[in-house]
């Protein structure tokens, strides 16, 4: 990674990035696939964002514009990171961290977007109801939030201003949803789905509500959510039908959980909890709306 260069002149950013990738000397080319606007409400979020971008970069060469609202004059720092793959191939990403007054940020970000490439907005923290959220959302074709931070109400607010919205917490539920769906893969078990009236979930509130919303929308039926307890991570999902219990659970933070289907041997299931950067990378692969999520959110 090249070191960060600072400037207060946004017009200088492009030439600084060109220099950072050696373009002025070697004429190297840039292969970038998307723009990512990252809103970091404070310095801690800036650091965690940069860390996440370092993980996302190898699979998604991108230009990241990290926007931080401050009560100070505009400052921008510029850096470029490159990664070498197994076949000695190199991919590079660019990063511009812009600190400016909230009112100035949308225009600053607009001037830094690479033309013709998709724009994603990754909003961290509670989804703001101020003008910044709306202005940046309108620049983006997809808004990425985390209901663990902003709650499901925050996700709904992002939908109102941003259109296509992704939720990292929902993305993290994929292994659980896959394991729960797997409980009913057999023909007899699939029939049992018709008799499910409630789901017991031990886990965080947003994830429990999303799990119940998904079941309601997928099965098109009223399903009661019963909370088994509030924990930091999802630990168990149980459904009872006709006196039989279908269950997926994970103890601790390992990658493996157990699925229990009446009449079968218990079997292990992958319940990996991918890091946020992996979830973010997956969401950047998708340009269209996630209809499944939208329906689950509505039913949550």
């Amino acid at each position, binding site marked *: 990674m090249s070191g960060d260069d600072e400037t207060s002149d946004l017009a200088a950013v492009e030439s600084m990035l060109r220099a950072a990738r050696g373009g002025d000397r070697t004429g190297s080319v840039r292969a970038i696939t998307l723009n990512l606007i990252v809103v970091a409400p404070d310095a801690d979020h800036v650091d965690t964002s940069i860390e996440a971008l370092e993980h996302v970069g190898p*699979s998604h060469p991108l230009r990241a514009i990290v926007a931080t609202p401050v009560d100070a004059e505009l400052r921008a720092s510029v850096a470029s990171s490159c990664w070498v793959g197994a076949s000695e191939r190199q991919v590079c990403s660019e990063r511009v961290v812009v600190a400016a007054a909230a009112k100035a940020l949308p225009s600053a970000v607009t001037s830094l977007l690479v033309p013709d490439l998709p724009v994603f907005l990754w909003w961290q923290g509670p989804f703001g109801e101020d003008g910044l959220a709306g202005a940046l959302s309108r620049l983006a074709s997809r808004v990425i939030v985390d209901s663990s931070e902003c709650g499901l109400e925050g996700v709904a607010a992002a939908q109102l201003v941003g259109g296509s919205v992704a939720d990292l917490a929902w993305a993290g539920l994929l292994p659980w949803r896959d394991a*729960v769906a797997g409980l009913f893969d057999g023909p007899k078990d699939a029939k049992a789905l018709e008799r499910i009236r409630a789901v017991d979930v031990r886990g965080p509130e947003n994830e429990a509500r999303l799990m119940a919303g998904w079941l309601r929308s997928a099965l098109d039926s009223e399903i009661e959510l019963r909370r088994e307890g509030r924990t930091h991570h999802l630990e168990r999902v149980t459904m009872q039908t006709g006196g039989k219990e279908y269950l997926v659970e994970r103890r601790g933070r390992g990658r493996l959980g157990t699925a229990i289907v009446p009449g079968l041997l218990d079997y*292990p299931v992958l319940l990996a909890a991918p890091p946020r950067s992996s979830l973010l990378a997956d969401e950047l692969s998708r340009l269209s709306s996630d209809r499944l999520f939208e329906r689950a959110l509505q039913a949550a």
Partner: protein
Amino acid sequence: MATTAKRPAPNPLRAGLRVGGASEPTVFVIYGATGDLSQRKLLPAIYNLAVRGLLPNRFAVIGYARSEMDNEAFRDFARAAVEKFSRTPVDDHLWQAFSETLHYQSGAFDEEGFRVLGDRLEAIDAAHGTGGNRVYYLSTPASFFPVIVQAMGATRLNRPPGFARVVIEKPFGHDLESARELADVVHRSFRENQIYRIDHYLGKETVQNIFAFRFANAIFEPVWNNTHVDHVQITVGESIGVEHRAAFYEETGVVRDIVQNHLLQVFALVAMEPPAAFDADPIRDEKAKLLRATKPMTIENAVRGQYGEGYVAGEKVAGYLDEPNVPPDSNTPTFIAAKLEVGNWRWAGTPFYIRAGKRLAKRVTEVAVQFKRPPHLPFPTDAVEQLEANALVLRIQPDEGISLRFGAKAPTPTLALRTVNMDFLYGASFLAEVPEAYETLILDAMRGDGTLFTRQDSVERSWEIVDPLLGQWRKGTPQVYPSGSWGPDLSDELLARDGRRWRRP
């Protein structure tokens, strides 16, 4: 012939999940589970699918072979294979769960053995809820295929309660007649849409990228025809010799080993018409149409070679006749160059030159589309003397990517045009790890997607294309070429006759 299993109602919770993965409960049966292919490719590929979370939740493997072994020994065998050959390291926690899906049954490839296997499969269905769905992988020498398939039919392993699919490795016969005989035997137990003929070349990401390049980009298709393309060169070069496979190679030679399958499949992808959909039958229909329009190969349009001693990458290497287990009077060709002609509207008059061989200058697989020169060059003759016609090169391996050759003005005081290359490296936009071809193909077989598998009509037509040449080459001797070269002189003469020359990959 097997009947169609009644499909259960879909699980509504599966909608939108498992994009790219397999979800239907499945038992994967490997015949010849202790063999080389199973060890090097199949078990590591299945493990990597588990790592990627792409296996069905209800899944089991049964290894079947003659060796006496229990489940535990087979799990140890599989672990050793994965540790040695997997592209990802073994994760102990994941292995613990994965290994519980591995089972072993010893027995012969006969009805008695298969009845025991059938009982075992039923027991696994009952314990694991795999629903009677089976993928049978024939990882044995081809000579066992008819025996295994017949015994499966006799013991009704081809008619489980769920679906039954059978995966067959190449070679699919050694000529047209034997290919038809094999197909007749297999069709007695399985319908064509239950048969997955694997050509691992088609599972490579970069071969599939030919589809994407041709049919996702509007700017190339209008010039992809005989009006604009002068000719096409397809090269499949290996730098290695026959190594320890002399006995196999003596039976096959370069035509059966490379041309009849891999090379003609790549050729078909490059030359076929756009399919209506990216689905198995539309794609295989178009490939079959293209092969039907391709004229059979004859000695008038083909040359053969056999590598002699020489130097490859600076190391002295032996000639083919000096390799262990090669008869001193062998006339097996290790190199072919040939001209393929396609009799259809798009390609009439535009030849496809193919070459393939062992111990060539380097390992490379590429397709070079050579465009025609502009009808008129409005520049002084001395300005364009170094200017070559446009060429588009699809590199399949190594350095997967695309090169476009075009003319540009050199920065000189007088007008001079030079040829420059614009390179796109596949890995410069996507640094993600590329799955092994076997992962892709095993997953597709489990999902019931036959797109990347070869259909019987294409197999037969491929044999019809190469059979005349194989017959004519039974006699005579190939021209010896030095190891580390690009083949015999006759190969250059083949193109020189048409006023063309091979590009240097």
